[in-house]
């Protein structure tokens, strides 16, 4: 128990929280604010059916986008899910989500960056923007 407690608190102290890394979309960061605005349009056109208007997903089928490591963590992994899809079931908080996510590789790098910046700062999330260059780099790794 002592070990577990110590490990947990260590984890909490040293792991930068997404909030700490995030830049708030304020007037000080008009580029991020604009990206979020454009991303909202992409979300409504492409993502909303499965992940729902509130980002909460659908039980047993489509995972929530709210405060999960998948969304707030590694940006390259997140961009990869959008560009290549996700075929494996995933588990979040003890719930399984099994439906395949289709690849959305017809979206431009800009659209992917915008929609990911949007979901990382919507639904109670707060995390750094995803840059076009980051999406481009992931796309370059995928089979043509």
């Amino acid at each position, binding site marked *: 128990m002592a070990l577990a407690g110590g490990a947990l608190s260590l984890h909490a102290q040293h792991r930068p929280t997404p909030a700490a890394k995030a830049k708030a979309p304020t007037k000080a960061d008009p580029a991020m604010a604009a990206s979020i605005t454009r991303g909202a349009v992409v979300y409504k056109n492409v993502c*909303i059916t499965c992940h*729902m*208007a509130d980002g909460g997903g659908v039980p047993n089928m489509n995972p929530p986008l709210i405060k999960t490591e998948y969304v707030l963590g590694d940006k390259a992994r997140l961009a990869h899910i959008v560009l290549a899809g996700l075929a494996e*079931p995933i588990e979040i908080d003890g719930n399984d989500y*099994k439906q*395949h996510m*289709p*690849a959305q590789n017809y979206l431009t790098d800009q659209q992917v960056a915008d929609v990911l910046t949007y979901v990382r700062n919507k639904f109670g999330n707060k995390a750094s923007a995803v840059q076009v260059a980051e999406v481009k780099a992931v796309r370059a790794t995928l089979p043509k």
Partner: protein
Amino acid sequence: MPALAGSLALVASHPTSVRVAPDPNNAGLKLPAGFGALVAAETGGKARHIAVTPQGVIYVKLNKVKDGKGILELHSQPNGKATMTGGFGDYGGTGMYEKNGYLYASSDHAVYRYKLDGKGEVTAPTKPELLVRGLKVGSQHESKSIVLDNADNLYVNIGAYANACQEQDRTRGSKGIPNCPILDSAGGIWQFKANQLNQRYPDGTRYATGLRNVVGLDWNPQDNQLFVMQHGRDQLHDNWPELYGEKESAALPAECLYALTKGSNAGWPYIYYDQQKKELMKGPEYGGDGKTPSTADYLKPAAAYPGHMAPDGLLFYTGTMFPAKYRNGAFIAFHGSWNRAPEPQAGYFVVFQPFKNGKPDGQWEVFADNFAGSAAKAASGRADHRPCGLAQGPDGSLYVSDDQKGTIYRIVYNAKK
């Protein structure tokens, strides 16, 4: 003692109508006049289909094993509440059905049965008989729902592991695969023997095909026929935005009730049913444009309901507790939609479909509503409860399971008929 004797005499004078007291708030449900509801039990599990034995023992199949149990056993108390008395089965799943002294259960791969004793209790909970194994399962439409006819046949839904048999599932603009290969082993109802062990695909018959996914199904005792509720295809707009608007896509296609016979073909993935045009339409993956009816000879639905409401339970009511209009009609549990956004979500209720002589007759109506908890929770898809399984108690009560929070509802009729 005099009071007790009095109440006993009262019960004895109404042998067919056991007076179970509804909860003061009818368990949060909205019901027609004269009906009441109570929370029979809170299981805390993902309660899929349910079965009630003639002795009143309630069995609940959980989608996911909870505390080592995939099937829960409950016993009813005289006040209508049910007490959890045990559990067994180390597998999740959906199917739960009782007939002629056996309890049938399914995982997402297999069907089992358990012998019941004279009290309706499972005799060997750790030693089920494996009836069918090796059923196809993908990452969607995994449920293997089950029902029996009166001739020892077992019917098993094997859902299609795709939305519309596209080259790339649910992908914008992806075409349908010709002669959809999924239909060989899924996308239909398979018939097996209810009393033969270790059956696999070659031992069964593809009884009906072209059914994308069926969760609610029941055997109609009036015309001795299998009826199923299909979950219609999703995402017309998402995948074909140039052909379907958001509103059309939220409304279409219908969730369909089919009356099946051996060899029926309901046409998935090549067609869908448009309940507004009342036509079978060519699917957009197979050359359709949203306007062109199909000329192919596929089975037409016996009745149609609004799109995406996800019918997960079907029950022909044969009891005498409810008023006469309900007898031999169908109750349908609509689990509730997800792919209607940005339109409001819908469903999360139990519908009554009148029947006459074994065929749907007249307009369906919402029977039990407000499982979601409020109109706003239904519209957002964040329902408190989602109706899934239906079963009839020995007294004619209607049981409804909820796979969101695990509530078991019992609906009773208390007014004078």
